[in-house]
């Protein structure tokens, strides 16, 4: 996108640098002059908010690692030591713990924004696929992070989730033992989870770079889903979107701070204030809220299908629920991106959102009675949405007429 750049080295030093490593030129092109559709709404600010969340988690996490002890005898007390004795420790620890929830809240909004406005469609398939990988890595990272305080939910969550892998035929048990570093969740598990929990965020950061690179090739999608036609449709990223994103980030920090300072424990589970004990199983083992929809899908398969037993079936369903996102660009063939112009799609989309919230709710309920039946319906709809509804809709739906361009759309709005 160098053609958009107005960069001229201001002096000899900049010229000298520019001839060798054009990093100033690069920053100007991509962080300042980058042409961005002028009609982006606030749903588009979550990209920047997520970058901020990742930064917060990495910075607070690095500081926590300076005081944390990854040993089963000391982990629990070392986290309490951080909260009680380390200078600023209780704020840093609370920001990190609450930050995980805020990170997921933002990523779910970001994903659902992409689903509604068709951001996964050509030419943004790779951008979308990288995003799915980031999401999966985030879940792995968050899960391992939750194990580190070595409370009861940490321990039993780790036991239940690692146990999932044992369902895989033949290689399942070796994978399980490799993950745990033994036959049961114990000190080796804690050590490797700590190591990986420190590593994965940097892998995520690298993927974020690719994600932004893939974004900067076709440029942003936008609420009407019509590609940028001319420079009249865009504004430079700076100062327009730097300012808008910065405003949105500050607003996002308000509920964030509310939780950190006034309800730091409300997003967690009381049982995690009990040190891990392999002899006592909690009444209900519940993962963190952001993993619940997929936990419901895992548990919903309680029947055997041919030679696949229910345990493996659950694992396939849960894995499939994530992996199906990878092929979404080829399932939804409608040429219209934005849900605003797809009258039928909108109904199914909002039902999908509702369905996803119900899946979250069910994950926290015991698997009994009516919950089991509802869970099955919800899981069925989750998959039907992708496999049947979207492909069929793209054939039968008559979209509303699209505006000719972004400029026409915003002018029409202004005069309406």
């Amino acid at each position, binding site marked *: 996108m160098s053609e958009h750049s107005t960069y001229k080295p201001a002096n000899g030093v900049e010229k000298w640098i520019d001839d060798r490593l054009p990093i100033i030129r690069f920053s100007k092109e991509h962080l300042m002059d980058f042409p961005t559709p002028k009609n982006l709404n606030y749903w588009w600010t979550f990209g920047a908010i997520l970058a901020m969340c990742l930064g917060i988690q990495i910075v607070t996490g690095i500081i926590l690692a300076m005081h944390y002890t990854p040993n089963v005898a000391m982990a629990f007390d070392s986290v309490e030591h951080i909260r*009680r004795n380390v200078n600023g420790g209780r704020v840093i620890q609370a920001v990190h713990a609450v930050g995980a929830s805020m990170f997921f809240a933002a990523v779910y909004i970001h994903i659902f924004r992409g689903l509604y406005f068709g951001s996964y469609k050509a030419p943004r398939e790779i951008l979308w696929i990288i995003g799915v990988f980031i999401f999966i890595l985030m879940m792995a990272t968050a899960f391992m992070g939750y194990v580190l305080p070595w409370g009861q939910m940490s321990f039993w969550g780790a036991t239940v989730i690692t146990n999932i892998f044992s369902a895989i035929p033949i290689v399942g048990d070796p994978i399980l033992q490799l993950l745990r570093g033994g036959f049961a969740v114990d000190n080796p598990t804690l050590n490797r989870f700590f190591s990986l929990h420190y590593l994965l965020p940097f892998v995520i950061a690298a993927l974020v770079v690719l994600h932004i690179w893939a974004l900067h090739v076709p440029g942003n999608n936008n609420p009407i889903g019509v590609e940028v036609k001319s420079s009249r449709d865009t504004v430079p990223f700076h100062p*327009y979107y730097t300012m808008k994103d910065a*405003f949105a980030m500050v607003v996002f920090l*308000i509920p964030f701070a509310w939780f950190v300072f006034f309800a730091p424990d409300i997003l967690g589970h009381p049982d995690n204030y009990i040190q891990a004990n392999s002899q006592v199983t909690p009444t209900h083992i519940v993962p963190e809220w952001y993993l619940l929809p997929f936990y419901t899908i895992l548990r919903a398969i309680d029947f055997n299908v041919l030679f696949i037993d229910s345990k493996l079936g659950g694992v396939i369903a849960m894995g499939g629920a994530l992996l199906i996102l990878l092929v979404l660009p080829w399932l939804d063939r409608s040429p219209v991106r934005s849900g605003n112009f797809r009258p039928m799609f909108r109904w199914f989309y909002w039902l999908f959102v509702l369905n996803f919230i119900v899946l979250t709710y069910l994950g926290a309920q015991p698997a009994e009675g009516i919950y089991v039946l509802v869970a099955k319906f919800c899981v069925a709809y989750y998959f039907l949405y992708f496999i049947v509804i979207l492909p069929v809709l793209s054939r039968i739906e008559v979209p509303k007429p699209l505006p000719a361009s972004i400029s026409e759309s915003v002018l029409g709005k202004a005069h309406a």
Partner: protein
Amino acid sequence: MIKKKTIIAVLALAGALFAGPAFAQEEEAGGHGAVHIDKQSWTFAGIFGTYDEHQLQRGFQVFREVCANCHGARLMAFRNLSEPGGPGFSEEQVKALAAEYQIADDTVDGGMRPGIPADRWPSPFASDQEARDANGGAIPPDFSVLAKARGVTDAFPFWAFNYFTGYQEGGVDYIRALLVGYHDEPPEGFELPAGRFYNDYFPGHAISMAPPLFDGAVDYVEAEGEAAVPETVDQYARDVSAFMMWMAEPHLVSRKETGFRVLLFLVVFAGLMWATKTRIWKGIEH
């Protein structure tokens, strides 16, 4: 200009954001929720809540004279007792208090020495097994963070409001209820195992801990010019629960104070950012 639709969407989103995590919460009492537990009014509840110094001192007295015979508090240091936002003992008082206790220390002659303010509260038993042997097979749980390790369950949809009120007193509500929830005789038809006691609020009702409190068990010193605090089980239970909350969350007051400054800053800053953003975008149709 922010349009009406956007505002509605943001409100709906905020609702969903708070509701999402809320779902995870509902089943979280870990089995304590089977019985309804009355919420109490605590001085440290809500965004303006702070600890009542006198109540913490009374609670400490109950803890020290009754609970500490069996329960440890390994994360609490003596010095915490004189820190701001706590029971408000003076440093001299804490020094004198610590010296009353013998602390196990491998580096001194005889292996024991008098405590200093930096020491942690000594455990009543040398090992888990010793604790178990002395208590009919049950380990008395450590008190350090116990008030945060218990909770109560609210029925749908009331738990959702907790995210906005910041209700986090489920643990103390449960502990207070437990302490006043003993019955001399189990209800008819209930098989109480030997060595257990019937409690309304304990999961399964058969608890290993004998009723620890009785009226008059602890002598409260009367403060001059103030009404005498009743020496009843209910009052003891309240006071020691409050003290346990402080033990689990000794910096609650400073945390909230910081929170007000942070939120005030963020709201003002957001306003300025909004004004700047609007100014920059002025004249751009979007």
